[in-house]
């Protein structure tokens, strides 16, 4: 126990003197996560807002055939503009999102009381054109309904006759849950920074120590190997928890600076505290697993080559859930990464977490961390580990 404390102190002292690694571990994630979340959120929101509220100028081919429609669209904030090039080419070149084509027989159909054709031309694979297309569609639909009603009234028929069934939506999702939608990637970011936040330190204290040839003298001291490894893991976890704390604080501060994000997720002090607590087992799992892997590597370079794979691990549950969304089951809270993901989503959506869920989650998380810690200490007992070259 005392030896563990000595190793812990020494590793932290070394880290504090290594400014670059310290900065990377403590500042990068706390700075990057809120910037990504808030930046992307604000960007998406402002874009949607501007597309919905800004006057939309579109080309209208054959506008002279339907002056009333064009005037009505103008009243809805959709104005007419002229294009120099062929409108179809403009859509293909992505210069334009959408344009209207009014058929040559529009006036004739209109007079006869038969449907007159108005084509909305767009490229359905373009994410960007979705909102303009919807706006044009909605405006024309409204025009259609209004004129249809007027025509029926003129013939002495109630417009209600023409609509025997009306479908309407009733959204039962809570406002809090809707917030979570835009922040689906926040759990991934948080899990990743908790899981891999300590990687610099771990690689430096294990594979780095071996590469620099200071492991053999260390193992020749009477300190127990279990204590040495535990000290190293504890140092990594201390740094990981600090980085996590900073990340959560900066997330909260960032959310207060950007009011949009506060509306989309729960950033109350309780929620932030819960998220921090949820991520704790992840820090311990990460620290032990990284130590286990890096201890077996002969050089820093070899250890770092494993990290590319590890970055993908937290992504797997998120991807699987994206492809086939399933209802929360108790077993999910025992699967690493998936459990953290679900727990964080619950907090972000302001759902209550059952005591049983907490129990399953914490037992599984800390249990796995303990197994990995044990594996790491076993690895330090291997004879070949001490031989550097």
């Amino acid at each position, binding site marked *: 126990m*005392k*030896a563990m404390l*000595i*190793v812990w102190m*020494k590793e932290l*002292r*070394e880290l504090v*003197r*290594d400014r670059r690694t310290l900065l990377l571990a403590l500042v990068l994630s706390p700075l990057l996560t809120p910037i990504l979340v808030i930046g992307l959120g604000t960007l998406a929101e402002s874009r949607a807002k501007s597309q919905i509220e800004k006057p939309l100028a579109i080309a209208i081919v054959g506008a002279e055939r339907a002056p009333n429609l064009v005037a009505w669209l103008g009243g809805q904030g959709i104005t007419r503009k002229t294009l120099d090039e062929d409108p179809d080419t403009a859509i293909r070149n992505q210069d334009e999102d959408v344009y209207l084509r009014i058929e040559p027989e529009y006036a004739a159909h209109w007079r006869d009381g038969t449907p007159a054709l108005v084509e909305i031309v767009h490229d359905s694979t373009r994410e960007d054109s979705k909102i303009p297309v919807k706006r044009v569609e909605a405006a024309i639909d409204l025009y259609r309904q209004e004129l249809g009603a007027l025509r029926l009234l003129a013939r002495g028929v109630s417009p209600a006759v023409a609509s025997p069934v009306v479908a309407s939506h009733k959204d039962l999702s809570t406002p809090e849950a809707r917030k979570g939608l835009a922040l689906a990637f926040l759990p991934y970011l948080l899990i990743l920074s908790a899981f891999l936040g300590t990687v610099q330190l771990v690689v430096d204290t294990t594979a780095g*120590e071996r590469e*620099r*040839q*200071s*492991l*053999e*003298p*260390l*193992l*020749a*001291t*009477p*300190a*127990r190997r279990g204590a040495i490894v535990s000290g190293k893991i504890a140092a990594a976890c201390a740094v990981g928890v600090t980085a996590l704390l900073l990340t959560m604080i900066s997330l909260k501060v960032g959310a207060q600076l950007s009011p949009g994000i506060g509306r989309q997720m729960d950033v109350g002090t309780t929620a932030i505290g819960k998220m921090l607590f949820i991520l704790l087992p992840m820090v311990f799992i990460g620290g032990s697993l990284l130590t286990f892997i890096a201890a077996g590597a002969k050089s820093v370079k070899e250890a770092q080559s494993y990290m590319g794979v590890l970055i993908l691990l937290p992504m797997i549950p998120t991807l699987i859930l994206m492809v086939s969304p399933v209802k929360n089951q108790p077993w999910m809270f025992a699967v690493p990464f998936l459990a953290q993901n679900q727990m964080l989503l619950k907090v972000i959506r302001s759902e209550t977490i059952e005591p049983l869920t907490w129990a399953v989650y914490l037992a599984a998380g800390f249990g796995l961390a303990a197994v990995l810690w044990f594996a790491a200490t076993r690895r330090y007992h291997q*004879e070949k580990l*001490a*031989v*550097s*070259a």
Partner: protein
Amino acid sequence: MITAEHLRKTFPGKGKDKGRVIAVDDVGFTARDGEITGLLGPNGAGKTTTLRMLYTLMRPESGRVLVDGADVAGNEEAARRALGVLPDARGVYKRLTARENIRYFGELHGLDPKLIEERTRRLAGALQMDDFLDRQTEGFSQGQRTKTAIARALVHDPKNVILDEPTNGLDVMTTRGLREFLRQLRSEGRCVIFSSHIMQEVAALCDRVVVIAHGKVVAQGTADELRAQTGEANLEDAFVRLIGSDEGLHA
């Protein structure tokens, strides 16, 4: 006192030929207190592997090691307490000062801070490292690094000292200083074992020499005994005879 009895160690072979490589085979010798015992042998003879078994980093496949009369198997911790070890790998923590490097090992040996401070002062004086004691070891010369490594290996005042090629890469003056330091350890009644592939060094320092070649002890005794055994007046010729030719091996 350190006694090695019939030590044997093999490693898994690499490549197509999967036969195990015999690193050390039936090595035995005794290093007495108040004497310097030299392990002499060419590169790859098995010196480092032998020493690693002595300081419990490796477990011999057969044979045993006694430190001060006690078998180290099962008592690794006690053995390591009784040993001061300068391994082949002597990396120091470059972001710590020399003093902090020494203190770290002192703490791992369970010494209290006052005692560590006192021992550091004494070792620094004996090894002439006062002018760089409080500098971070990054950028240290080979000699400064070796001195730091030796000081931290001896901070717990061990009765037995094992040094793996301590003069490797050191200049003449540092080597001379180090020899003086080893003689001082001997005069304090310690048991000193050191390995080397350099003849002159062994001749200049050792009370007893153990010559190792191809993982086996080919001869042991005082320098005079070795000369007599081979019939060579010059110790270097005796060494070449002992390790180089079949005639030497069977002498």
